[in-house]
């Protein structure tokens, strides 16, 4: 199929996709769109359906209902080989009997490009991913990171409309992961290819993607920019998945929830907790500020240096778990272990969750206390 690049408008869409495996529904009315040049990440635990979404987009699986559109055209019935998509798999997708160069050139060979020309282009792409010294090596002579670079080069060789990355870094060492992450993003941005990234690693999704969709049990719970997702999570699951939260028990009031002496609006009132009942607020470590107060209930029990910020662990007799407050290290230097501290929540709203039995008891106990100020 002919895709002159100047006419590409790879607006990619999945509309109301439903997928069942036997009795199990893996995708429920999944709707997703990827703009031209945009990288969208699907983030979620294993089994949430993210890989299935990618495979349906690729044509490797077919949806039970719903549509797949590329450039406005319905490609649901088009087989994979005609969809002009680049795919990078998790591992072991290189053809073992071909060199790196021949692997990368394979797509061009299928398209009938002449030998000299395709070898040259393959060489260029391998140089782009930093492997110009390895062009004649075989996959089993290369490390995992190198293999994934070749896989990326191979997928780019056909100048795809869409790039699909199925957990491309999951099988790699942490250090290699970091390097490759930046490179993939750099190449994707410079080429302007619409890209779908599937991963269970929230750090990867947040760092690489323009928008992140958090998936759970076949649905996208929330989709937005990393800042949106991190700063304004809509559900307890998302709040906990895309970063760290403190679970702090409090009592629901008429307008919101009273926790740590502050009245906060509830972001997810659909959870339906009655007034005067306990609930748990999910507050990020950096959204709490500390002030030295020897008369306060909470005491500093530990400080963990993390680089430019320090995690200050704070404990109260009533609460089973300590709370974690993240401060810039210079600010954290003012606090010592054993010191009493006042806490001030720096937000106006919070996500709440149903409390565990223990948390409910703690909420009641804390509400007896007069004041935190």
């Amino acid at each position, binding site marked *: 199929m002919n895709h002159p690049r100047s006419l590409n408008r790879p607006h990619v869409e999945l509309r109301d996709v439903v997928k069942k495996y036997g009795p199990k529904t893996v995708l429920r009315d999944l709707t997703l769109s990827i703009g031209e040049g945009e990288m969208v990440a699907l983030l979620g635990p294993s089994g949430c359906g993210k890989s299935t979404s990618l495979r349906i987009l690729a044509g490797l699986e077919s949806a039970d209902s719903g549509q797949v559109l590329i450039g406005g055209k319905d490609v649901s019935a088009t087989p*994979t080989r005609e969809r002009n998509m680049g795919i990078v798999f998790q591992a072991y997708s290189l053809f073992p009997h071909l060199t790196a160069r021949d692997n990368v050139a394979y797509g061009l060979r299928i398209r009938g490009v002449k030998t000299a020309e395709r070898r040259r282009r393959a060489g260029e792409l391998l140089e782009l991913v930093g492997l110009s010294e390895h062009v004649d090596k075989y996959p089993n002579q290369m490390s995992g990171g190198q293999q994934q670079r070749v896989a990326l080069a191979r997928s780019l*060789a056909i100048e795809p409309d869409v790039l699909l990355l199925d957990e491309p870094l999951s099988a790699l060492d942490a250090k290699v992961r970091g390097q490759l992450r930046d490179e993939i993003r750099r190449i994707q941005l410079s080429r302007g290819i619409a890209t779908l990234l599937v991963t269970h690693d929230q750090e990867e999704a947040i760092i690489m993607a323009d928008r992140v969709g958090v998936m759970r049990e076949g649905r996208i719970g929330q989709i937005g920019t990393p800042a949106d997702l991190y700063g304004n999570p809509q559900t307890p699951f998302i709040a906990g998945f895309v970063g760290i939260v403190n679970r702090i028990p409090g009592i629901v009031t008429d307008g919101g929830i009273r926790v740590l002496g502050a009245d906060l609006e509830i972001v997810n009132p659909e959870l339906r907790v009655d007034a005067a009942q306990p609930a748990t607020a999910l507050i990020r470590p950096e959204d709490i500020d500390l002030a030295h107060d020897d008369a306060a209930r909470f005491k500093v029990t530990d400080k963990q240096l993390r680089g430019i910020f320090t995690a200050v662990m704070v404990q109260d007799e009533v609460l089973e778990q300590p709370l974690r407050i993240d401060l810039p290290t210079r600010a954290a230097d003012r606090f010592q272990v054993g010191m009493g501290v006042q806490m001030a929540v720096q937000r106006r709203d919070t996500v709440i969750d149903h409390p565990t039995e223990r948390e409910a008891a703690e909420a009641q106990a804390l509400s007896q206390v007069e004041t935190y100020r």
Partner: protein
Amino acid sequence: MTAAVDALTPDTPDAPDSTGPEPAEKKSSRFTFRTLSSGSVLGALPFFAFVAAFLIIPIIANLIRAFQDPAGRFSVATMAEAVGPTYRQAFWLTTQLSLLTAVIGGVLGVILAWALVSADGPRWLTSLVSSFSALASQSGGVQLAFAFVAMLGTQGMVTGWIESIAPGAMAEFSITGFLGVTIVYLYFQVPLMAILMLPAMGGVKKAWYEAAASLGASKFQYLRDVAVPVLWPSIIGSLLLLFANAFAAYATAYALAGGSLNLVPIVIGFLISGNVLLNPGLAAALVTWMMIIILAAMGIRFLLTRKSDQWLSN
């Protein structure tokens, strides 16, 4: 006794898509006599002594005899006679039988292996067929021959069925002839091929097909460019093993055809047991030629699969 297989009962193969960390380093195991302590040699002594006494020494004795003339002096005359005009026909017939059963067994065996690897069917069925394949590949022997006589002999069960549908169709067929023996050999050749190909076909990653498809390849192009090139060394290697297996088989052929089929192992048997002329020197020479052929086949197999085994592991 038919030659043995590479693996026992194979596990029901899982989905070929494997995910895991970097390929492990190859362990370097260089064998030097320095690393042996006297203790370790002692512990292994019973085994090595046993193998020496009942395998190595007889083979050497056989080799020596093959290169002697009837008077006991060194000579290549006996070896020459063994491939002379009298016996050439036997070698040719045995080669034909072995090639035929290897190729047919190979094709059917690959199909069976594909079905086992696909893991698409019910799990209990795959496991059952897998176990029985392992057993069937070892079943060459007299009992198998008699079972086939019961099935396809003149009074056989299946012969009767065929006769009732198409009378006269089985008139020319004899289970004790070349074609009949071929069919019986296939009973163990097909599962043997399947078992030999299981590891290789299980090593074909699903991601290869999907990657090829994303690059624009049709199913045929994938087979041509990826699957076949990766698998053909294993296929040829396994065919060679099947060939060697058929070449060496004795019991089944003898139980079916007695002396009427002019196969090399049968001829050797006659020479050893003194049915014709007690001529152990000639028997030794024939044995040596047979072992050379088998060794050559296994040697080629080893060279072929060394490279492709790497591709299919991980």
